[in-house]
């Protein structure tokens, strides 16, 4: 009753608001908010100096560099090829297109550990692809990047597809009538329409890659300072019963994740506005 009286913006004849929202809030509180707050409260038991010491040792900083760098480069590759994949799936006809479209979601559905051992086997030096490459992929930072490309792939494609489908063909026709080449039409008409969605997809892939653990640890080799990702470092600290140290690093990653979440929300708002204006 309290919920409906204080929160509802207008009168409604439909029942169940208090029950549904009450349950949803209780559930989120118990499963998400209280446990998440534990991470922040645990960090407050450290002094500022201890917090800095735990989160800025050379080994931890090396892991940030790898995690953020590989995630950024993986999201970049996904943005480029994701745009091509989305374009091809929306605009062209070719055999087995629907099957391929359905398989784009594979990284969502395939458990990360399964992806991890499969990618390691393929890109190992005697693997299907690894044997043809002049350099090592598995057990190097390059392997981390490969795993992150795999898990980020659906984000760009699935964010771009609906936007590309909605692009008004009349705009392209108008551009062609006015003498634009197809490339000009793409760069000056289509690309500006899809750029918010492309950036959103990039940010989603980047955010997902930052926290990824399962697929990376098999292929990374996990050498300290070289191929050790930050989530693994959190686990290592936990196994040494250094709970405060593990939590301090986790809080750094959480803050990065929340900032990205904010950026993604802003990008999506921008995308909606851009689409509404057209």
């Amino acid at each position, binding site marked *: 009753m309290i919920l409906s009286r204080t929160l509802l913006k207008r009168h409604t004849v439909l029942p169940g608001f208090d029950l549904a929202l009450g349950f949803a809030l209780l559930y989120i509180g118990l499963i998400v908010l209280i446990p998440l707050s534990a991470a922040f409260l645990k960090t407050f038991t450290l002094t500022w100096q201890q917090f800095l010491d735990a989160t800025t040792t050379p080994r931890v900083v090396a892991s940030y560099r790898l995690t953020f760098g590989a995630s950024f480069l993986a999201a970049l590759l996904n943005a480029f090829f994701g745009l091509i994949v989305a374009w091809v799936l929306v605009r062209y006809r070719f055999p087995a297109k629907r099957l391929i479209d359905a398989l784009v*979601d594979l990284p969502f559905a395939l458990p990360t550990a399964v992806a991890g051992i499969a990618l390691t086997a393929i890109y190992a030096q005697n693997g299907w692809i690894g044997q043809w490459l002049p350099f090592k992929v598995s057990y190097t930072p390059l392997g981390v990047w490969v795993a992150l490309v795999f898990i980020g792939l659906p984000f760009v494609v699935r964010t771009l597809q609906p936007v590309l489908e909605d692009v008004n063909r009349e705009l392209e026709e108008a551009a062609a009538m006015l003498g634009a080449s*197809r490339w000009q039409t793409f760069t000056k008409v289509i690309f500006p329409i899809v750029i918010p969605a492309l950036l959103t997809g990039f940010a989603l892939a980047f955010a997902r890659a930052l926290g990824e653990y399962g697929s990376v640890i098999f292929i990374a080799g996990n050498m300290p300072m070289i191929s050790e990702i930050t989530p693994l470092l959190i686990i290592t600290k936990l196994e040494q019963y250094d709970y405060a140290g593990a939590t301090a690093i986790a809080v750094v990653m959480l803050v990065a994740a929340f900032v990205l979440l904010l950026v993604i929300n802003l990008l999506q708002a921008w995308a909606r506005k851009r689409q509404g204006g057209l």
Partner: protein
Amino acid sequence: MNTATSAIPTLPVAPAPAPAGVAPRALRNATTEPVWVQRVLIGVALAFMTLFLFVPLATVFFEALKKGVDVYLAAITELDALSAIKLTLIATAISVPLNLVFGVAAAWSITKFDFRAKSLLLTLIDLPFSVSPVIAGLIFVLVFGLQGWFGEWLRDHDLKVIFAVPGIVLATVFVTFPFIARELIPLMQAQGIEQEEAARVLGAGGWQIFWRVTLPNIKWALLYGVILCNARAMGEFGAVSVVSGHIRGQTNTMPLHIEIVYNEYQFAAAFAVASLLAALALVTLVVKYVIEQRVKGQKREIGDRSE
């Protein structure tokens, strides 16, 4: 149609006449690319997806069966593997229904009512997507672990959450809880509230409205949400890895079993168990595909009727 600049037609539908002296070319659709560009782009897209998607998927099944069917069957019927499968099924059987109820409740309140702080609630639902699975596990250790908030109390009452089944369930629930809500919200938002309001005016009660009006409208999206949530719950690795303690035969789920066996260099066995999860992923995608076709059919039907 690049020659059209010189003669701007009054009617946009009429193709511009080719200037005199230029041989008439075969007309090409002005809003698509030349065939060779299309072929190159399709080729690039397929090559990229082959390298990063299809080859890994094929590898799982290839490596699993490389040493023969006997080795495969032995690997998935081994005692530790069976107990891992059992634990995975238990954890999934608890967490999916919980998230189902939450998903429906959250979607009902968000899509059928207009209230303050709605976008905040939406952000909270998305939160687990942006939290690393490792951190998801860590926070439950901080709450229920020995040094955690309830650690001593749990020990005094001889209860175990961390390194036991309840911890695995909690971590799984956390990681998978947005999926069903996320599938339902856009659909229910698009469907609006007219049908429910009509049912209400005709005297239907709350549960009647839900079972007879809302549920038939959302059943396919709900089914897909459940199946996606199920696949993610069975495959969750990072969060479960932190809270499970990796006790063989007791707190190992399928993904953790894969890791242990893999690290013992029993690659065929690891890929055998992995192939079960990969098959589940494929089934999930097939169901998604079938449901999408149905939803498209439904939309077409509605379109026909309204004309």
